[in-house]
């Protein structure tokens, strides 16, 4: 009994040590800062692990406006202001047309780390998983999107598929789908023989 206990104790210590080395290896993060200096720092687990992690929804990069991301480029040196207000100057071009009476910027954007989005429960998510944010209200759409019914899904019907983020089709600040110019109507049968028109290239 005593031996068993000792053995299991040593095993436990061994495992802990192994775990600690693994964690310490994972916790160091190396990157170059904007001045080009190598920075080695402890890695902070920014995003919580979620239940459906591992299920991948491959998406192209989020459709940011030119030069807008990472937000921390500008926001890093700014004092965060949690006060609800009308924006002037920067971002004044964004007109919220999406339940605007009930929310403002910081209900989705994160106060302290602008490079992430924030769910209502306080969890941070990257912009590449913004569908989780939209799915908080539009749960039925998220469910359909995951199985490929809502939204455009391309790739291979019996292989890898490419999803699009909600924001690729819907501007998150004004999400209704915008009208498009239709492509030319077919030629009426009565005009087919009379029109000896030159072959027009197919519009793309």
């Amino acid at each position, binding site marked *: 009994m005593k031996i068993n206990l000792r053995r299991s104790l040593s095993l436990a210590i061994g495992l802990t040590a192994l775990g600690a080395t693994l964690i310490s290896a994972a916790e160091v993060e190396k990157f170059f800062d904007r001045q080009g200096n190598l920075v080695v720092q402890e890695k902070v687990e920014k995003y919580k692990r979620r239940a459906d992690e591992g299920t991948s929804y491959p998406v192209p990069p989020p459709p940011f406006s030119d030069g807008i991301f990472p937000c921390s480029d500008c926001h890093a040196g700014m004092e965060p202001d949690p006060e609800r207000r009308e924006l002037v100057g920067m971002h004044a071009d964004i007109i919220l047309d999406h339940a605007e009476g009930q929310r403002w910027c910081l209900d989705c954007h994160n106060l302290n780390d602008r490079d992430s989005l924030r769910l209502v429960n306080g969890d941070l998510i990257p912009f590449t998983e913004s569908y989780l944010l939209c799915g908080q209200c539009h749960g039925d759409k998220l469910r359909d999107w995951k199985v*490929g019914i809502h939204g455009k899904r391309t790739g291979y019907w019996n292989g890898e598929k490419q999803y699009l983020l909600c924001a690729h089709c819907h501007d998150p600040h004004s999400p209704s789908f915008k009208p498009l110019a239709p492509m030319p109507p077919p030629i009426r049968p009565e005009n087919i023989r009379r029109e000896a028109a030159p072959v027009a290239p197919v519009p793309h």
Partner: protein
Amino acid sequence: MCNDSKCDKQAFQKSRRKVLKGLAAGIGVLALPAPDAAASVWETFFQKHFRELTRDELKKVLARLESNYSKEFGQQVSVKATPPIEGVKFGYGLDLSRCIGCRRCVYGCVTENNQSREPQIQWIRVLQLDKEKGVSLEHAKHYYNPPEVPTEGHFYMPVQCQQCENPPCTKVCPVQATWMEKDGIVVVDYNWCIGCRYCMAACPYGARHFNWAKSKLPKEELNPNTHYLGNRPRPTGVVEKCTFCIQRTREQPGRYPACEEVCPVGARKFGNLLDPKGEIRYLIENKRVFILKEDLNTQPKFFYFYAT
């Protein structure tokens, strides 16, 4: 023996028969290709029905077509005859609550499937319908052309081959040049079709189109990735139709059809009906679905649905 007039009559009858026989043979010979025609013309003339070709014969046919098309279009054209995939029955879904009638699918299809530009052939026809009247085809408009779609009070319904499980078009073909494949795609053997257009009359969806003239297809717009039963350049005088992009979808892995890929609103869905976890089964089981002209018992594998 015989009197003169009777003998004359017999002689005349004999000679008349001979003349008619000769005439028939002569006309028959006229129908053959000219004796100095290229070997490929003779081979085309005596080509068997697609489904009766042995593997070697099929190889020869494909090679002949490839060389002919490559010469005609000045680029390497491939003609495949990829067979159906085991355990697959293709189905299509179209979300009427999403379609905005922009006709991107029509032109995506034209480019992918080498349709004639002039005279114009389009496999997809987008109908503009009144919300007030619902799916009422007599009120459908084909030629709408406002500056922007969708327009107030309208919804849109693209119609193409419904890939019926009980297809009326294949039943009327007098030479069996059109049939349903194992994966559910209704195809045409353009080399066997005699151009009688019975199938066009039989199709309740207007999904079949006739090559009235030599198709004008600019060389640089040709899609060189073709299938024998699909998008290879068509000869004059044959019927053609949507094949669910057979040249894409039968591959492993198979790309989505061109219309699905080009749709800007994601209204088009495609997959394997026999896959219980696939998107088509999901939408049939979870959404409000209807099929066009259900009362005709054509049993389409094309499902219109409302996702919301």
